[in-house]
């Protein structure tokens, strides 16, 4: 269990340092079952920080989201560090970003938060209804206790927790400069049963499913923008010279976009599942990404976001790589 006072004290220590520019964490949302990510610039603001099962967002996405503005003449660029609070799944994003040399290890200070699961707001809304007030959620044994519109409600954890948490193998951060709470036990394994179930269908059944799903897509690119691994300055889908994917939202372009994104995440997706959570039209994006995660593990024995010393998957090869279908 994370003691919020301890978390705030540690955050305060970090923000008081001269070499720290900002700290990214979670604050209470303005309504409903999710927290709001927050970027603090001053140690006096640490009381805004919280940690409870509403903290679903991945703060590691915000490290690479920050734009690098050109510095006016005569001014020096601000090279101070960025501090970030991360759960176990979020820390894999930092590991993978370091593997890809997106930034220096010295440029970030990682405050690790061992996590025991976050709530899926859709499940919570189905159970307790929507609310205009922020909901506080605490964990008691295998139950969640929620304060919805002033009333205390209870539910078994297994019914409210996000699907990704039910197969979480990394509840403890894999990279950190300090931990804000004690480490927790690993509480599940991932057999990729959902991938196998989907893959067992015929091509016609699969396409029928995806055609319906991709027709809903409005190409808002939220999945791409929230993804901690999508940090290219110019993304292939928005490239105009030459244009790979047209902006029209027909089935051809929508399918091409999703294939492109899943492809660019091959061997890089760290399964924070944010893409699926943010999609406004409920496209099961992770179904594609998890297929590649499973295949990458089977074929190349590689898992992204776990070892800082690893090489990126597609930047290396093994002369004995499988070639089952090659003529």
């Amino acid at each position, binding site marked *: 269990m994370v003691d919020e006072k301890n978390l705030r004290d540690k955050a305060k220590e970090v923000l008081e340092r001269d070499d720290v520019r900002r700290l990214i964490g979670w604050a209470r949302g303005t309504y409903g079952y999710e927290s709001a990510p927050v970027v603090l610039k001053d140690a006096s603001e640490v009381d805004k920080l919280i940690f409870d099962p509403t903290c679903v967002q991945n703060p590691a996405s915000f490290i690479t989201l920050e734009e690098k503005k050109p510095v006016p003449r005569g001014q020096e660029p601000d090279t101070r560090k960025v501090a970030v609070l991360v759960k176990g799944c979020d820390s894999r994003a930092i590991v993978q970003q370091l593997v890809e040399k997106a930034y220096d290890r010295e440029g970030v200070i990682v405050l690790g938060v061992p996590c025991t699961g976050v709530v899926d707001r859709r499940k919570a809304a189905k159970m307790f209804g929507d609310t205009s007030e922020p909901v506080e959620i605490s964990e008691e044994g295998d139950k969640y206790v929620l304060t919805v519109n002033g009333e205390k409600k209870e539910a078994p954890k297994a019914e409210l927790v996000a699907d990704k948490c039910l197969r979480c193998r990394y509840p403890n951060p894999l990279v950190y400069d300090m931990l804000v709470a004690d480490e927790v036990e690993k509480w599940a394994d991932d057999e990729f049963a959902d991938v196998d179930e989907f893959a067992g269908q015929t091509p016609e059944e699969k*396409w029928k499913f995806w055609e319906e799903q991709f027709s809903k897509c409005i190409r808002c690119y939220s999945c791409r923008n929230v993804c901690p691994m999508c940090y290219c300055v110019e993304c292939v889908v928005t490239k105009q010279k030459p244009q790979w994917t047209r902006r029209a939202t027909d089935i051809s372009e929508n*399918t091409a976009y999703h294939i492109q994104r899943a492809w660019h995440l091959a061997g890089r997706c760290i399964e924070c599942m944010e893409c699926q959570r943010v999609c406004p039209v409920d496209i099961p994006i992770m179904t594609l990404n998890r297929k590649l995660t499973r295949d990458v593990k089977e074929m190349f024995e590689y898992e992204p976001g776990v070892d800082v010393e690893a090489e990126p998957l597609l930047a290396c090869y093994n002369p004995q790589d499988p070639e089952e279908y090659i003529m």
Partner: protein
Amino acid sequence: MSEEFEPNIVAFLCNWCSYAGADLAGTSRMHYLPNIKIIRVMCSGRVNPLFLVNALQQGADGVLISGCHPGDCHYLEGNYFARRRFMLMRKLLEHVGVDPGRVNMSWVSASEGAKFKEVIDETVAMAKEAGPMDQFRRRQLNW
């Protein structure tokens, strides 16, 4: 006579081995199926897997990437990278519902004219079996 479906195959051939192999098949007067449209690239490692997606969007019923045998790449490692990429891209396309027979890869060296003919025959046969690519083709009719 009924019109039999003739698939359109786009073939990316590496300059040093596969393209030369195709050339050998031609100069040896081996008849290989005319369904393929060849794009010469310097190395199979140059082929971006997104080219496949684009080709399928533009009306290709099947795609072939052909390079030097592993260990014999003219640029030493290009085909190793290509091998990894296309193994994964094929799996991804399969998961979307694209018939795996549409995505093909082969190692054809400069002296293997006969093998090239066989590769083409096989590729066209698999694309024929998969049928016309209609899933996420760009449609003028939609306009």
